């Protein structure tokens, strides 16, 4: 190994603490580190607008689905490490929580790097080594946002290797071809592997100043292929390390006190004799925190239960209070879509005005790995291992908590056992760090299920009022969607950001009308509930599309039109409208729309766009003793350029299944100041028994990848509700769907 390529990072990255070196590639090898600049994407917010106009402009910008403008670090950092044996390690700052992004991003890197797929290894980047991702693994934006960045990073590295090979071989660069991790002369007379080039390199590497030439789509060898997931070999033998699994020598276990009811604040606590309980090492009582570090989880829990903790409690909240707060209020909210004059057309409508209201309930994330983190806080540095979708957010919290600089804090992202928006940040890292700092030893904090249900945040309830004017031949002339929701993004953003956005882009995700009538208007009202609410897979998408796509079905029925034909007629004459028509026609074809079915079965259809991805679904249902059974869901998804088709299928299957769980079963309620569920007995999830056959058709289109993880959760509730209507004539306007 060449000593000229000493690592350039200030702190030595460490291997996961419990990983054995059974697999050879697990051993960290210091080979080759280069820094490749990453393009930032800062968006200036300084334009001068009137406020409503600004809010509408922001809404239009944010409708891409990505959330607020953000940027990935532009500091030079190492994404790719090539060892002398020609194996490449990709350090990925995006989190693998089952969406397959480590595989998709590796496909993008390997494609331009020209390296054997069998010779790659993918790890989470820690925040000392980098690269650092400021925006988190959220909003179905991972592949779409990283695609241009990673192609450039990898192509730069390939060109640097070609240039160095030219020097080493004494050949012109133009005479050298990079392929399979090797630079070869065109006449094949001489070749060197990337590893050999690196070992022989003297001096420092220079990143090319010019943008590298990227491959045309037609020459892709890896992108577009259903390559197997890179994280599964470890996962199926139980060796993948998640936040709950992290172990280091000398560690303790922590637990902390949670408010017993919603809105309660800590009044005080007394340790009494708890300090002498078996296994208890340290009791921490501070103004806003009561925690225990102990030799075992059970000892920590026993001690927390035994502490005398007093709380300031408020009048117990009830579900009826929430329902009243969340109801749609005419005229209140922020206009996020306004074309033509929907209000005027609706007021002048001569036919009976069509109007309907819809509701969706609180829902839990129910990620199966509860919040978990291990913190090792020392005098001059801190190391955190954590299940999080956003390591940079956890680092920021540690800077504040510990009074350290960013470079003193090493966040090691672990595999995440289900995120779904509940692990944006971490609710275990802070208590673990507080306890570790107090006790001077590493402390692991893992939540239990009751804490997740009682003390996390929920998907907010929503209410929707839709109105339409349409002609007897089924042409919608005006459509208005007024919706009301608890906070999603607003719960996490500083008030100044909300002042700029004017509305909660998370809550209204999917709320803007995707049909092409000349007069359309959407008004979003966000309500700060006394209950913690926030991100949940798709954000407002499932709720908003349930309302819009159910209403569209009602409109079709009101003029006795086929729901598919009605949609095709009312979609816009735009490029997006054409993509919708293609996706809808394809799903209709796959599902045999209009063809005979078994007695007692019916089909429903729905569609949506999210982050510019288009999805349409057809659900086939039957009803027995008022129980809705979904037999089949056909899904067609067109997410731009597809990196890994099977990955898109898997995400679609998962989103549909999770969406069906919300459609048929899930509802959290507030009772006497608490969430009604403490565990899955009171909040059952869908199981295999109620999961239908799911057939996914993936359409790849164009040269830009779009989002995949969330869009397919959009249409499923409406597709099922529309099928139930077709079968029974009952229009169900609340989730979960319950037949009268």
């Amino acid at each position: 190994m060449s000593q000229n390529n000493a690592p350039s990072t200030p702190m030595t990255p460490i291997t996961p603490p419990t990983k054995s070196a059974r697999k050879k590639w697990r051993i960290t090898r210091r080979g080759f580190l280069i820094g490749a600049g990453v393009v930032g994407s800062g968006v200036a917010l300084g334009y001068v607008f009137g406020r409503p106009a600004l809010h509408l402009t922001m809404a239009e910008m944010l409708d891409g689905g990505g959330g607020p403008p953000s940027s990935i670090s532009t500091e030079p950092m190492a994404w790719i490490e090539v060892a002398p044996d020609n194996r490449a390690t990709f350090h990925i700052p995006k989190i693998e929580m089952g969406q397959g992004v480590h595989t998709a991003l590796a496909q993008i890197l390997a494609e331009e790097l020209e390296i054997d797929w069998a010779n790659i290894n993918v790890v989470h980047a820690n925040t000392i080594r980098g690269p650092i991702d400021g925006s988190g693994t959220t909003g179905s934006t991972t592949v779409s946002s990283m695609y241009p960045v990673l192609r450039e990073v990898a192509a730069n590295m390939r060109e640097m290797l070609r240039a160095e090979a030219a020097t080493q071989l004494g050949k012109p660069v133009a005479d050298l071809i990079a392929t399979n991790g090797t630079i070869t002369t065109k006449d094949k007379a001489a070749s060197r592997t990337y590893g050999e080039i690196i070992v022989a390199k003297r001096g420092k590497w220079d990143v090319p100043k010019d943008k590298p030439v990227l491959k045309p789509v037609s020459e892709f060898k890896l992108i577009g292929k259903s390559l197997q997931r890179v994280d599964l070999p470890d996962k199926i033998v139980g060796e993948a390390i998640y936040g709950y699994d992290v172990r280091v020598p000398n560690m303790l276990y922590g637990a902390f006190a949670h408010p017993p009811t919603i809105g309660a604040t800590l009044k005080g606590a007394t340790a009494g004799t708890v300090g002498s309980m078996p296994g208890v090492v340290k009791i921490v009582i501070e103004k806003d925190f009561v925690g225990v570090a102990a030799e075992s989880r059970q000892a920590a829990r026993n001690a927390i239960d035994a502490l005398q903790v007093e709380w300031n409690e408020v009048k117990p909240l009830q579900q009826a209070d929430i329902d009243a707060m969340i109801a749609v209020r005419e005229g209140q909210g922020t206009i996020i879509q306004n074309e033509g004059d929907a209000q005027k057309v609706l007021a002048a409508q001569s036919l009976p005005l069509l109007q309907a209201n819809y509701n969706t309930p609180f829902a839990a994330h129910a990620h199966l790995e509860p919040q978990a983190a291990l913190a090792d806080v020392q005098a001059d540095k801190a190391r955190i291992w954590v299940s999080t979708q956003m390591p940079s957010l956890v680092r920021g919290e540690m800077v504040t908590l510990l009074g350290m600089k960013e470079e003193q804090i090493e966040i090691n992202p672990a595999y995440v056992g289900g995120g779904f928006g509940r692990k944006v940040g971490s609710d275990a890292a802070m208590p673990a760090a507080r306890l570790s700092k107090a006790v001077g030893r590493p402390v692991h904090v893992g939540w239990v299920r009751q804490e997740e249900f009682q003390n996390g945040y929920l998907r907010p309830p929503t209410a929707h009022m839709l109105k339409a004017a349409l002609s007897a031949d089924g042409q919608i002339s005006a459509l208005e969607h007024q919706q009301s929701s608890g906070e999603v993004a607003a719960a996490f953003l500083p008030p100044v950001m909300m002042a700029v956005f004017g509305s909660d882009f998370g809550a209204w995700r999917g709320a803007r009308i995707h049909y092409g009538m000349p007069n359309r208007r959407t008004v979003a009202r966000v309500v700060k509930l006394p209950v913690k609410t926030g991100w949940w897979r798709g954000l407002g998408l499932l709720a908003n599309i349930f309302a819009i796509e159910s209403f569209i079905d009602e409109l079709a029925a009101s003029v006795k039109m086929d729901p598919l034909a009605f949609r095709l007629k009312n979609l816009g004459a735009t490029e997006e409208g054409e993509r919708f028509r293609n996706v809808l026609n394809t799903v209709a074809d796959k599902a045999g729309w209009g063809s005979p079915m078994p007695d007692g079965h019916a089909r429903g259809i729905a569609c949506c766009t999210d982050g510019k991805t288009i999805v349409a679904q057809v659900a086939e249902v039957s009803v027995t003793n008022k129980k809705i059974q979904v037999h089949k869901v056909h899904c067609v998804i067109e997410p731009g350029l597809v990196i890994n088709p099977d990955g898109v299928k898997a995400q679609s299957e998962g989103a549909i299944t999770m969406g069906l769980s919300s459609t048929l079963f899930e509802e959290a309620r507030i009772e006497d100041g608490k969430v009604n569920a403490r565990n899955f007995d009171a909040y059952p999830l869908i199981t295999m028994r109620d999961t239908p056959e799911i057939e996914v058709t993936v359409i790849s289109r164009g040269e830009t990848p779009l989002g995949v993880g969330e869009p397919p959760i959009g249409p499923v509730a409406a597709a099922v509700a529309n099928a139930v209507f077709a079968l029974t004539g009952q229009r169900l306007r609340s989730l979960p769907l319950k037949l009268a």
Partner: protein
Amino acid sequence: MKITINGSEKEISAPGAATQMLLWVLRDDLGMIGTKFGCGVGICGSCTVHVDGVATRACITPLAAVEGKQIRTVEGLSDKLNDGTIKLHPVQEAWLQEQVPQCSWCQSGQMMTAAAFLAQNPKPSVDQVVDAMSNNYCRCGCYTRIKRAVTRAAEIAQEQNPERAA
């Protein structure tokens, strides 16, 4: 007290160990983190292990209940061969072929449930697979693939060992 895990005997001497749940002994005392914690009340199935071949929820099984019994965890599902390589269990093989897991937190429990089921019923119908697997949660929604993979695992086991299935 002594328990046997994946064929090797372990001595657990921590005070109060007998009343500890097997899950936490595996994970925290022995560092065998392949078995996962999900709910703590035996509903979700993430902690499923084999006790004398029977799929068992480790989160509600006190250590005293498994003394002297054979425990198998996901770490012991595959076979380590003499040449140092690993031969995956047909269930693991099928899980890879069908690309089943997403986040995979539940999948140790899913695979252990499937392995115990197939040991009792080597040629199951699809309805039997659904019955056997409908007590394990998968929040990522991998059920359609799990269903396919259990059937595939039965086929793999049969290919590997035709007499047994006959």
